[in-house]
């Protein structure tokens, strides 16, 4: 197949294909921006000479991550890592085949195209859309460079807006984004078989194993067991027992995290079974059976969402600990009538936590977009059944409700479990209470300063239990559910479009 033919066949799509191409382009653009940002960091000049090594700080920047040569490779690596899920999202949209594209690809197979050629045609469409996205992304990067180039009073730049990535880097990004998106897309199509008679989505049909479920239960109940166990072990052997309890706690919670991430299929299957068993309404019956029939649908992206939530919950719990820690320290100092000011340590901590929170939100959004693609795919794959049901008088509302149940029934418990596991992961390793030492002050000369002398004042130790940050967890979990509701909404729009009665006419 000649390149020109391939290009022509790749972009021959209709209106729904434009939606998918837009989606691919929109998710490729940020990938290009992130990769160019990494290239910009690479372009920050190394001031070190052969003799001096590369230890000289680049004082142009206010941010220590950019200033210190030793930290810059880490920044580049992080940015590259951040680009991976975004690229995956761009590639994933290939699976969301419109009925028209499925028919077109099937017709090409019928006309003599090999399976490989059909996959290449689909992947070429992704590449074309991703190229468009990376061009837009490059434009956005150049625009952002200009907009963010502000020199504050101290003359130090917050971002490397003074250097431009090399021409090689620009070309590389323009080429790399479409190629990677297409490769990922072709890889993700491996479960989709394009036959001359239609497009078949292979469904992993074996029901999920039980063990991830056991791991999850361990994770949920671990916090209840760990502390009494620790106390028991501590009574046996004071130091080793405490360490052992810590190890046990850490391993247990780690297993639970693994359970949540590997066990999405089990969660979906179990949610389906419960819906089917206890659901009274037809929508619940449909949703339950769908979940039981294909619990793996979207499980990869659901895992990503849950992983983001576990990390997010852990960070929130850590933040709660640190906040309490600073509070009690300040309180202890206040009792000593010292002046309380926000320490450097505290502001550094806030910045770090905020960065991680942004990463969690971005990760969760990317994962939610992935779930949307998976949901769209499953709706499109079932479109003929849906059209038949609507013709038989099943109201669209019932089908919509079944899609909502199908998405939310596994999600809500999974979110709760992920949050619980995230919090218990942290609480297993950091203390449950924060202690601020008041220390002692001495008003006399050095000779008067010993514990018990009249000028020696012992300040009280302030201890406070670290609260579970319920408000923040509610915002995080609620946010995840809200984003998923949005995903369901998009699914319902798609349902409306996919249940055209034309589906009944095409045999």
């Amino acid at each position, binding site marked *: 197949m000649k390149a020109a033919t391939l290009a022509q066949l790749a972009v021959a799509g209709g209106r729904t294909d434009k939606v998918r191409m837009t989606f691919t382009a929109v998710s490729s653009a940020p990938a290009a921006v992130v990769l160019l940002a990494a290239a910009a960091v690479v372009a920050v000049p190394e001031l070190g000479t052969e003799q001096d090594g590369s230890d000289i700080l680049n004082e142009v920047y206010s941010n220590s991550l950019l200033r210190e040569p030793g930290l810059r490779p880490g920044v580049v690596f992080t940015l590259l890592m951040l680009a991976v899920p975004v690229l995956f999202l761009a590639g994933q949209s290939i699976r969301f085949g419109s009925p028209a594209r499925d028919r077109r690809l099937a017709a090409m197979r019928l006309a003599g195209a090999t399976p490989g050629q059909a996959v290449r045609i689909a992947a070429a469409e992704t590449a074309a859309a991703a190229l468009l996205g990376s061009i837009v992304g490059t434009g956005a990067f150049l625009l952002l460079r200009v907009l963010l180039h502000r020199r504050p009073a101290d003359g130090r730049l917050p971002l490397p807006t003074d250097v431009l990535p090399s021409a090689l880097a620009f070309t590389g990004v323009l080429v790399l984004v479409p190629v990677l998106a297409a490769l990922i897309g072709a890889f993700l199509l491996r479960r989709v078989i394009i036959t001359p008679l239609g497009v078949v989505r292979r469904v992993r049909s074996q029901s999920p194993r039980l063990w991830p479920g056991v791991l999850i239960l361990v994770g949920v109940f671990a916090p209840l067991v760990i502390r009494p166990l620790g106390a028991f072990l501590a009574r046996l052997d004071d130091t080793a027992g405490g360490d052992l309890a810590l190890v046990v706690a850490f391993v247990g919670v780690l297993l639970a995290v693994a359970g949540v991430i590997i066990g999405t299929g089990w969660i979906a299957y179990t949610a389906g079974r419960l819906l089917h068993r206890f659901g009274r309404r037809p929508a619940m019956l449909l949703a339950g059976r769908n979940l039981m*029939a*294909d619990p793996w649908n979207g499980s990869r992206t659901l895992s990503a969402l849950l992983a983001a939530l576990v990390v997010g919950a852990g960070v929130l719990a850590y933040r709660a600990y640190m906040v309490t820690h600073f509070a009690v320290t300040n309180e202890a100092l206040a009792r000593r009538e010292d002046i309380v000011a926000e320490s450097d340590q505290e502001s550094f901590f806030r910045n770090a936590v905020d960065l991680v929170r942004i990463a969690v939100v971005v990760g969760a959004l990317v994962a939610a977009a992935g779930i949307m693609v998976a949901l769209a795919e499953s709706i499109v794959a079932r479109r*003929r059944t849906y059209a038949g049901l609507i013709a038989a008088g*099943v109201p669209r509302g019932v089908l919509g409700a079944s899609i909502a149940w199908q998405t939310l029934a596994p999600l809500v418990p999974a979110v709760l479990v992920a949050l619980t596991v995230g919090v218990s992961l942290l609480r297993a390793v950091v203390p449950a209470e924060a202690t601020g030492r008041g220390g002692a002050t001495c008003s006399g000369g050095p000779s008067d300063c010993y514990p018990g002398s009249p000028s020696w004042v012992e300040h009280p130790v302030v201890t406070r239990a670290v609260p579970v940050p319920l408000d923040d967890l509610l915002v995080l979990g609620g946010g995840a559910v809200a984003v998923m509701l949005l995903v369901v909404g998009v699914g319902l729009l798609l349902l409306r479009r996919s249940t055209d*009665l034309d589906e009944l006419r095409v045999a």
Partner: protein
Amino acid sequence: MTALLQGTGLQRSYGPTPALRGIDLEIGAGEIVAVTGPSGCGKSTLLHCLAGILRADAGEVRYRDQDLGLLSEASRSRLRRTEFGVLFQFGQLVPELTAAENVALPLLLAGSGRREARKAATLWLGRFGVGDLADQLPGKMSGGQQQRCAVARALVTEPKVLFADEPTGALDVLTGEQVLTEIVHIARQQGTSVLLVTHDAQVAAYADREIALRDGVVDHSGLGLGIGS
């Protein structure tokens, strides 16, 4: 015989292509009517219009003196699942539901309890000789067994009109014959009207009367088949 379902001056196009170009027809209570004609003559579109699945561009469809064109989508949905039954060539069972659940679905939608719906579903599957498959998924059944389940689902609500579009198109001769015979029996027993769309004269012969379409109109050379009898 007073008409139970009546279409007058029905027209419908897909884009610039006209599928129906003014069709009149009546179906009496308990009557089995075949609509025949070559592929592309508009017979499926006619069925979709009469069943209230599609709205006609012009003309009107009356069911028991009710104008379907004036009903909302929700009311037409309700009508389709209570008064009408629909049956297509294939692909109408929900693959994830068992046979009994598929058949019970219309009853559940109508508000029946699960146990009650399940009982009725098993009964109807039994009537069509697939009672022992109640807990099977459609994917594990043969085409004929699936179509029997589909017929059971179309008839479980004891509809007044059954719309069947090439109901035996995907079946072998003998299985198709059994399915048709069962449909005719149930229809006679319950006084159900049947609109049978087919391109096959042998299938059409199960009807009391035949209406031949050609290019979106009632075929004049076939008029003798449409009137009288």
